[in-house]
């Protein structure tokens, strides 16, 4: 019973990633695509957590932290690039 519910939730995550992929391909502006990529990162974190229950292993739990950090840093870098045209600024005014 628990296994079945976990597999159903994995399927729903796959559907959700497919919807985000549709938004990445179609999205009218660059921030839309960045938001959808951020959501794919969140979905991957949830999928890894549930797969580690299904496979009964503790080896994948470090990957959750690493994926969280990578998703956050890439979102910040893309938004700085969209806003100013540079990721690391050299001027300090405003």
């Amino acid at each position: 019973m628990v296994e079945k519910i976990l597999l159903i939730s994995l399927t729903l995550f796959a559907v959700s990633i497919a919807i985000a992929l549709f938004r990445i391909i179609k999205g009218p502006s660059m921030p839309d695509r960045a938001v959808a990529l951020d959501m794919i990162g969140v979905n991957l974190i949830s999928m890894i957590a549930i797969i580690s229950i299904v496979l009964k292993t503790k080896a994948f739990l470090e990957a959750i932290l690493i994926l969280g950090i990578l998703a956050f840093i890439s979102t910040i870098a893309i938004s700085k690039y969209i806003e100013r045209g540079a990721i690391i600024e050299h001027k300090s005014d405003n």
Partner: protein
Amino acid sequence: MTVIANILIIATISFGTIFILVTAIGLIRLPDAFSRAHAASKSATLGVMSILLGVFLHFWLIEGHFNSRILLGIAFLFITGPVGGHMMGRAAYLSGVKLSDQTVRDDLADVIKKKREKLQ
């Protein structure tokens, strides 16, 4: 005892799955980039926090292994999810993404106009 633990785990994981599905529906249905960023930052963070809490409860109550990395991951996602959403909304506004037709007020436009006049 195992039955109660299973009920807790399934309840939290189903709650998180429902919230992530709502996020996907919002990402495909909402009209402009700001409302889509609103959907993707808040409810996805709540959903993934709930799922990680369920996985933590599974490893703690059923396999007897207190895993502090999942708790660290929950705290990290709780801090960074809203920060990422805020940065993305600000970048979208300042790079000139159009608001939807149904928007009734836009308070930030006046502030940015005054600031640009002051700078020149």
